[in-house]
């Protein structure tokens, strides 16, 4: 049964990763960590793709997650001052919402402090979900290239906003470091391993959750919507609600990925997160992986990162070209993504 095997592979992968972690060389730990958080983001994008939508703006949530992870106190400050700039009574609903949000952020940050890995990831996810809940209301009305462009627009707007926000470092961004996990203080050596291990566990949890979801009622609706939205509406289901929900899920995943990235790399800036080239990379990895299985995004991310690292190291002057050529080759010869190498995809005539 295909379903059981996925669970098996995921568990095996998790166990192996955690076990060999302590003996892996530095570069390997980094590499796997990168693949893990990229894979998590792509898991979300694959969900959207199965619903028939390609987002060229996942960088938005990736960025939000990263910044939230690194700057929770600053974020809380920003949200609260934004709320204070609308003192008039008619803005009360907005202030309530903002206060609830900053309150939630404070709550997350209180037990372990802002430099705690757990806090970071939760804050990233929360911020992403909050923004996606709002933006999704609008975006769920668009399809195809317009959805792609509008999502891109929002991502670039965030980019623009960050570049002129000096509290967050403008174009330079800022650095951060993980000092503890769930309250347990970490030395810098153990921090690296903990980030790695936690990334693996999170990736595992996300993959399992998404796998289960794809067999649920709403999960199967996603494929139906992609095939024939009109029919879905004509049978009585709300396409927009499902799309909105899936959008929020994918945003949450991107936010988690961004937070993990911030923790792993130790630095965030607008260029590597909110800019369209980052979103473009995500789209590419998603197409590379295909939507066949929850394992595929990690495979795709692995290959992408491998090619990129290889190209940067050996052909630094032409790494973009190498990446481009690889993209073309994959698109030309593996139209269903890498996963089709393992499993024959079901395709309609």
């Amino acid at each position: 049964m295909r379903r059981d095997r996925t669970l098996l592979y995921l568990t095996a992968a998790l166990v192996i990763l955690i076990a060999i972690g302590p003996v892996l060389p530095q570069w390997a730990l980094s590499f796997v960590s990168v693949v893990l958080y990229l894979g998590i983001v792509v898991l979300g994008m694959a969900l959207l793709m199965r619903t028939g939508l390609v987002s060229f703006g996942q960088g938005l949530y990736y960025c939000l997650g990263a910044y939230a992870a690194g700057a929770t106190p600053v974020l809380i400050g920003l949200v609260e001052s934004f709320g204070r700039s609308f003192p008039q009574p008619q803005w009360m609903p907005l202030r309530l919402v903002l206060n609830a949000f900053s309150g939630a952020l404070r709550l997350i940050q209180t037990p372990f402090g802002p430099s705690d890995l757990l806090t970071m990831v939760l804050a990233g996810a929360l911020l992403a979900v909050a923004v996606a809940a709002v933006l999704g209301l609008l975006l769920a009305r668009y399809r195809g290239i317009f959805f792609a462009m509008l999502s891109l627009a929002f991502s670039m707007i965030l980019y623009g906003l960050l570049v002129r926000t000096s509290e967050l470092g403008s174009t330079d961004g800022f650095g951060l470091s993980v000092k503890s996990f769930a309250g347990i203080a970490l030395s810098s050596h153990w921090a690296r391993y903990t980030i790695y291990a936690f990334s693996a566990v999170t990736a595992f949890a996300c993959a399992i959750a998404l796998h289960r979801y794809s067999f649920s009622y709403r999960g199967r609706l996603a494929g139906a919507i992609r095939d024939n939205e009109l029919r879905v509406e004509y049978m009585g289901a709300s396409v927009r609600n499902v799309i909105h929900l899936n959008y929020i899920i994918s945003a949450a995943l991107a936010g988690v990925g961004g937070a993990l990235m911030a923790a792993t790399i130790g630095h965030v800036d607008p260029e590597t997160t909110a800019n369209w080239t980052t979103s473009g990379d995500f789209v590419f990895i998603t197409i590379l992986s295909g939507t066949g299985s929850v394992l595929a995004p990690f495979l795709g991310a692995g290959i992408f990162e491998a090619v990129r690292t290889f190209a940067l190291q050996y052909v630094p002057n032409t790494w973009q070209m190498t990446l481009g050529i690889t993209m073309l080759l994959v698109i030309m010869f593996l139209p269903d993504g890498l996963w089709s190498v393992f499993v024959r995809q079901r395709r309609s005539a």
Partner: protein
Amino acid sequence: MFVIAVGLTLIYGVMKILNVAHGSMYALGAYAASTFAGYWLSHGYAPYASYAALVAAALLVGLVAGPIIERGLLRFMYGRDEVVLVLITYAVFLILEDVTKLVFGVDPILVAEPYGMLGNFRIGELVYPVYSLVLVAVSVLAGVALALALNHTRQGKILRAVIHDREMSMALGINVSRVYFVTFTIGAMLAALGGALTAPTTSVQLGIGAEVIVLAFAIVVIGGLGSLSGAALGALIVGLVRSAAVHYRPEVELFSVYMVMAVVLIVRPKGLFAAPEARKI
């Protein structure tokens, strides 16, 4: 910008491809034109003829690169999904970025003579370079020429037929494949021309392709994909927004363009001049 946007919208309208590599055409055009014009000027040829040099270089780039990309690659991919095609052009863009680097080197090129040569003129207190006027004039000319060509020549009508309904055009015997080829090449030439003409006003360096494509996308989407008048209006709007931004708050330049695009899409989900949709059931 208009010239570039027109090329992009033309390619989208006919082939339904949002061509990311358009930015590369722009960059190549800029580099080639600057190099060629610089060469021309440094050898002491007639300075005013350098304009011709710019234009010639650009058209040449378009004529060479366009067909190579279309015939050599895109032609095999037309059946694929819209988004996949965009990714393909993105891959081409990446490749061309490095090709540009290899061919022209990493140093910026500045050939400002064509720009400075014409001097400035005054409107009241504001000083404008004459070259900007020339750019505007060329854009308008190109727009008018294109509009005329599309509406009054036989080739133009064929193009519009294909924009409207590809399958029907094929059924009517139109050689869609050749139309695609011609369209893409014209689009490439337009982009290169845009690059060539803008080159003297700024230093040509790495990354201008990426900068420009982002703006061009915004323009084309604002105008409604596939509509030429939309592209014109879009370019105008974006130009105004950018100037206003640069004047009042320079750091929000790019951001404001995307704000405008978001607003337009919210108010008019398919852009300003989108074609009405036919009944599906």
